Structures are given as structure tokens and as C-alpha cells.
């Protein structure tokens, strides 16, 4: 199939960007979206032209590296998928497809479709862990965890940190991401000792990074490739309020 790409091209972080058009010709419909970009890039490279820069790694939807806003939607059309899990059969012959990077103040563009998501790491650094040194642990079965709690913790822990929630939100809020980690750890008995300090520290860091606030419109949940529920945001608010009241 043949499609036309309208791609955000930006040479470096502090330089202006603009859309450029690229033809994508003779693309097999079974190819994935990123394989289509590989084909276009290989063609560009053999002509000595700079390829379109984009991030991807595992190409099976788990590492969270890839992320392109495709026709206005983070990770493109389709539910519960990452960009690497999108296939060309989702498009029609002759389509013009628009490709943009995640757009958020806290995720500066590094080049073309590549953004810097280090802000997420810094939010985790602020408290998204259980403080236990290697060797300190007691026997794994010494502390039973109700299956329901464990399953809910796993639902939240499934977040891949791709940032689609931020890209989908008109406020560029990171609440879904932060709430997923806060929920994961708050639901487990091991996470209790730092439960109050953790949520406050992570929220402070989130604000410092320049992410916006949540206005409860759930675009994040709709675009989340792992279908992380906004119920986690409700839990985050509750945890934050309690922490502020009780400490």
C-alpha cells in the first residue's frame, strides 16, 4: 500500500520544528507501523538523507520505549496497544498520516519524534520504591498477601511508563503514571511503612517537573496501552489527602 507521512521534524531540543512530508511506497499491509517507518528510513539512508528519528526497542509492547502521536492519538488508532503493536492494516490506501512526538512541557523533544522522559524517572526516584537493602528480606511466604490486594497491585504495576497518559491529557498531567506506582505499593503490606511519605514526595516531584493537574476527563485511561484504570487516580488523591492530614 501507499501512504503519505506528515512528520514532525525537529533537529535538536532548542530548535524550531516543522512538518515534512514523506511518501511511504509499496508497504506490505501486514507490516507493523514501525516496520513501515523502517522501510522509509532505509530508503532515506540509501539516498544519504537523514532518517526520521523515533524511539523503539522491544517491539512487543512491554518496554515502553516507543511512542508517537499518530493522527492526534498517542500510540495511534486501536485500543490497548503501543505504537509498535499498530499494524498498517489499520490504515487505508492513500491515507495521509500525521506523526508527532509526545507534546508536554515535562517531555522536551530531543529530535523529531524522540522525547526526553527522564521526568518520570525522577518522580520514581523521589519515592516510588520500598526501601529495602539487598539481603534484608525475610522469607517470601512469611507475610501473606490477600490475593485480591496482590492482583490489584499487579494491575497498577503493569504500567510501562511510556508517557501516553501525559501525551493524551490536555493538561499534560502525569497523574495516571504516578497513581499507578503509588497504588501498586500502597496496596501491599510491604509498602506500608513509607506509605505516607512516598505519596507526598512523588506528588511534589511531579509538580516540580511541570506536569499539569488532573481534571478528571480520563483521556489517559482511554489511551493507556495497559488499560491502567483512573480508579488509581482516585486512590492517589485519597492517599495524598490522608498523608497530608495524618503527618
Amino acid at each position: 500500500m501507499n501512504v503519505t507521512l506528515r512528520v514532525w521534524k525537529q533537529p535538536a531540543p532548542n530548535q524550531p520544528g516543522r512538518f515534512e512530508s514523506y511518501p511511504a511506497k509499496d508497504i506490505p499491509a501486514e507490516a507493523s507501523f514501525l516496520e513501515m517507518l523502517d522501510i522509509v528510513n532505509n530508503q532515506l539512508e540509501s539516498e544519504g538523507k537523514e532518517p526520521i528519528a523515533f524511539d523503539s526497542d522491544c517491539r512487543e509492547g512491554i518496554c515502553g520505549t516507543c511512542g508517537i502521536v499518530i493522527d492526534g492519538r498517542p500510540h495511534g488508532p486501536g485500543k490497548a496497544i503501543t505504537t509498535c503493536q499498530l499494524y498498517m492494516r489499520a490504515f487505508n490506501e492513500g491515507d495521509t498520516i500525521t506523526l508527532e512526538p509526545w507534546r508536554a512541557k515535562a517531555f522536551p523533544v530531543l529530535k523529531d519524534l524522540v522525547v526526553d522522559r527522564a521526568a518520570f524517572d525522577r518522580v520514581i526516584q523521589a519515592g516510588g520504591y520500598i526501601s529495602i537493602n539487598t539481603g534484608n528480606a525475610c522469607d517470601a511466604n512469611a507475610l501473606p498477601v490477600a490475593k485480591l490486594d496482590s492482583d490489584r497491585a499487579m494491575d497498577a504495576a503493569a504500567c510501562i511508563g511510556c508517557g501516553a497518559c501525559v501525551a493524551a491529557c490536555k493538561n499534560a498531567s502525569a497523574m495516571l503514571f504516578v497513581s499507578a506506582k503509588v497504588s501498586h505499593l500502597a496496596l501491599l503490606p510491604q509498602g506500608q511503612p513509607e506509605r505516607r511519605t512516598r505519596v507526598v514526595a512523588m506528588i511534589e516531584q511531579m509538580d516540580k517537573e511541570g506536569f499539569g493537574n488532573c481534571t478528571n476527563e480520563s483521556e489517559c485511561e482511554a489511551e493507556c496501552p495497559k488499560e491502567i484504570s483512573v480508579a488509581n487516580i482516585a486512590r492517589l488523591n485519597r492517599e495524598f489527602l490522608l498523608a497530608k492530614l495524618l503527618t
Partner: protein
Amino acid sequence: MELRSNVPDGPIEKKWDSHRFNLKLVNPANKRKHTVIVVGTGLAGASAAASMAELGYHVLNFTHNDSARRAHSIAAQGGINAAKNYQNDGDSVWRLFYDTVKGGDYRSREANVYRLAQVSANIIDQCVAQGVPFAREYGGLLSNRSFGGAQVSRTFYARGQTGQQLLLGAYQALMRQVHAKKVKLFTRHEMLDVILVDGQARGIVTRDMVSGKVESWTADAVVLATGGYGNVFFLSTNAMNCNVTAAWRAHRRGACFANPCYTQIHPTCIPVKGEYQSKLTLMSESLRNDGRVWVPKEKAVSEAIRKNQKSPNDVPDDGRDYFLERRYPSFGNLVPRDVASRNAKMVCDEGRGVAVSGLGVYLDFRDAIKRDGLDVIKEKYGNLFDMYHEITNESGYERPMMIYPAVHYTMGGLWVDYNLMSNVPGLFVLGEANFSDHGANRLGASALMQGLADGYFVIPYTIGGYLASNKAAKVGNDHAAVKDAMAGVNARVDKLLAAKGKRPVDHFHRELGKMMWEKCGMARNEAGLKEALAEIPKLREEFQRDVNVPGSASSLNQALERAGRVADFIDLGELMVRDALERRESCGGHFREESQTEEGEAKRDDENFCHVAAWEWKGDGQAQTLHKEPLTFENVKLTQRSYK
């Protein structure tokens, strides 16, 4: 050169304890004076960096990913083994040790494997304490499953995302140390050389992948946890950016590369569709618990299916060859990975394969659905069926799934001793990047175990032993060796950019991959290997002349990153072929066609090949020298594996 494994004396169950006691200690107040470089943030790298920082060492940690959380360990689905015996089904440290040595087809070092089994239980404790949400029973205790043909239930898992959850545990431990300023983390930094001073590893050279800046870093020791080299085959289940460059650069500086031809081929991957394909996707091998593997008995039927003139559902039972059940009646579809893979290749080579390319076999759930009902199968494997549907646009419930083996893991890697130190003093290698624990074949759910064992429970001890007994002076960035390494890296980058030929990097990578898969894959023979050995230098020459790497060195340049990696893959490929040629036996993950039993099964040759093949770099254009570390088995009796 003599390769000293430094395995301690004494009975195997006492070795690690007595070694830990005998290792010298670094005084707590002195630990902060030592800087350790860790390259990689996967299970091995992140756990090592965090654990060493907790002890008080000053750690510099590097990853080429944009975040430490994205290392490829994240993609592991199945689980992690541990000898907890929570199920009361007869598991023990000894049994896990025994199974791993046997599964590795007697090509691993006994003492290392025993230690791995010993610390396996501590790993689970540590991960649970970190908040890893392993699957649990209603009583609140941990759940286990049997995995990869094991006779006991010792595998711990977190849905189909065990690697992800374990990695996030290690990543969070690492982030805590970054916050405490004990670890300095550098993301989007690619290691391009090791710096040696007086024969010791004292630093690395990196390229900042955003600014293009080439920098040097010095330390008292260097730890490589840089993963495997499966991408030498271009198509593999590895992530796009997995590469051998860090390990290969260390090899070029003198670290021996051990058993490079040992690669693991995973039987249940989605078959290749076309030339454009960028990677292969693995489906959990748990599917083989209920799916039946078959191809048509008649070549003509396969042909008709390939041409879409016939549906597999119309092939009657007596026209189907359930080849694993036929050949291995006692294990059936649950034979180990290498056996399942080899047999799939064999029936496809006979022209009975079914995918459009002819390289595919069926994994059929028809009978399981009939027996257990669609709901039960959906509940067990729903996510895998969804994934299959998403990729192939076909429903595995209505039409048998198609699978074909793909490269998944590499057992070979840099040679290390019992302390996980390479033959270059001060250069340690952990996880998939080393060669040590899996022999010629890795069992399911063992990779995660090894990565975390090395990082949490081995290197924190052995690094101390090295640092305490090594009193070398600090090395500054103005040292001649540092400048020399920097100049080498810059020259290499410039050379790649200067070629300005006509072909993209991927072209050469694909060509190399095809050659490696055909000549040095699941099955190899002397003639094919010799052909590959003659062709690879031509490919290298063509690459140097005709590659086109657009853009500059001083900005984010993904073509340049790939070019450097492919150049190293070409050199590695040549060594793999040389190693495969030398190993004239079938064992574990590979089948040497000249070495088979009358029934066509793999035939090991313990008399001549019960050793580790460790290759020493001799310079560009020179063949590496082979050193052999003999393997002795005092605790597990060598037997020919049989799954009949």
C-alpha cells in the same frame, strides 16, 4: 594464557560459604573511596548497581536506553525458578542444580550452577520484599507453576510479565540509590570501549547518544551487564537495540569470549512474514501444555495450504503428523526447547512446513478446546491468543496457530571465573553477557534467576574481594591509556560516517543475519560453516565500502548507533562460525549434523568437547586463539539426554 576458574576447594555445597568467608573485605569507611562502573541496567546491571551502592561503593551506571526501566529483561514472560520447595513436591537446591546442569547438556561449570541454585531462594525473598506482585493463592501465599518441562513446580511468576515486574523491582532499588546520590546514572549513553591500565580494567569510553559527546570515565573496576547477542541474527526475539558492542569491545581489549556458538532457539515464536520484518515475537511456551504440534503428512497438502487452496481444519486426523508426540511418546509436545525447535526445522526442511514461507508448523488447540471448553482455554491463554491475533490477524481459536523457532537467548558470552571476573583483572561480567551458568542450553525461567543472582548476591561479595586485594593508584582522565581509547572511539565513529556508500545499515545486518541463521543456526555442518567463514569477510569489506550513515557525529544519530553495532556483529558472527566449526559435536541448543545418533538425535562427544571454548582476540584480520577450560563433573553424572 591459562584460564583459571578459581573454583574453591571443598564439597560443592560448602564452596560458596567458604569462599565468602575467605574473600577479603573492604572496610565500610573505605568503600566510598572506591568507584565501580556498571554498564547496563537490566536485571543483572540494576541489581548490581543498587546492591553495591547500598554497601557504600560509589557507582557510575550507564545505559543506552532512555530509562533504566527499559532494559530487555523487561520482556521476559514466563517466570523465575527458585528452589523454595513451597509446593512440597520434592524440590531442593540439589535438584535445581542437577536439572540446570543436565538441561545445559553438561557444558556449564558445576560450582557456578550450584551457587545459582543456592541463592535462588534469596532472590524470591528480596523481590517480594521490594513489592514485586508475584501470583498468589487465595490463602495469600505465593503460587508456583511447572515450567519448561520441569518435574517440580518451582517457577514464580507475575502473570505473563515476570521480567517486567522483577526489572521494575531492581529499577526501583536503583532509583532509590540514585536519589541517595550513591549511584550516578547516565541514560542514552553507549559504551564504546574499555580502558585498560597496566592490564587492569580501569574505565570506559561512552558516547552521549543525544549530544554525540565522547567521554571517558575511570574507576577501580568495571562491571559489564550488557545482555546477549541474539541480534547477530538480525531477526530474533531481542529488542531492536540489544547489541554485542560492549562485550565485543572488551573482547578486543583481551577478554576471552566463551562458547560464542551457543545460542538458544525458542520453539514457539510467530513465523517470519516477509523481508521487511524487524523482529520476531515470542509466545510463552506454556502454550505447549495444551496445544498439539503438527504438520500435514503429505508434502502436497502442505503446499496446498501454503497457496491458500486448503484450510488446515480440513486436514483429517490421519493426514496429520503430530511429530513430537510420534517421536517422543513420553514427553510429547513438552520436550525441551532445543528438541522441539530442531524437529520443527526438520519437518519444514522436508517441505511439510505451513506458513507462506514454508517455515512454520501448527500449534493446534482444537482438541484442548473440545476437552476443556473454550472458556477454560481462553482463561488460561487468552492474552496469548489476543497477541497472536493482533500480529497475524488470525484467530488461534478458529484456525491452528502457526509457530516457528527463533533466536531467543545466547548462552555464550565473555569468559568469567567463579568470581564472575573475566581474564582481564577488574573486568566483571554478569547476566546474559557472561557464559557461565547455562552450558549449551538454557532452561525456561533460568535467565531471570541468573541475572538477579549475579547482581544481588554474587558481585556484592566478589567485587569486595577484588578491591580489597588490589591497591592500584587512581587513574585520571589525562592518562595516556584514556586518551588513546578516546582517540580510537572517535576515529571509529568518523570512519563509519565517512564511507558514504549506497546502502543502509540494515541491509548488511539482514544479510549477516540470514547467513548466520542458515549456516550457524539450529543445525550446522562443516561445509556450511566453511562457506560462512569465507563469506563474512566479504560482507565486512562491502559494509566498510558501501554503507551510508547520514548525519553527523555531534547529534542524535540512530543510523550511526546501528552502524557501530552492526560492524561488531559482523566480527562476532565470524567468531561464532569459527567456534561452531571447531565444536564437532551436537549439544544443547545446537545440532552438528555430522554428530548424530542412528535415530537422528543429537550426539554429544564428551571425550573431545567437554570443555569451555574461550577465544582470545589477536588483532584485526587475525583469527582468534582458542583456549580450553576443561569441565569436570564430580556431582552430576554425564548422561546422554533422552526424551524418548
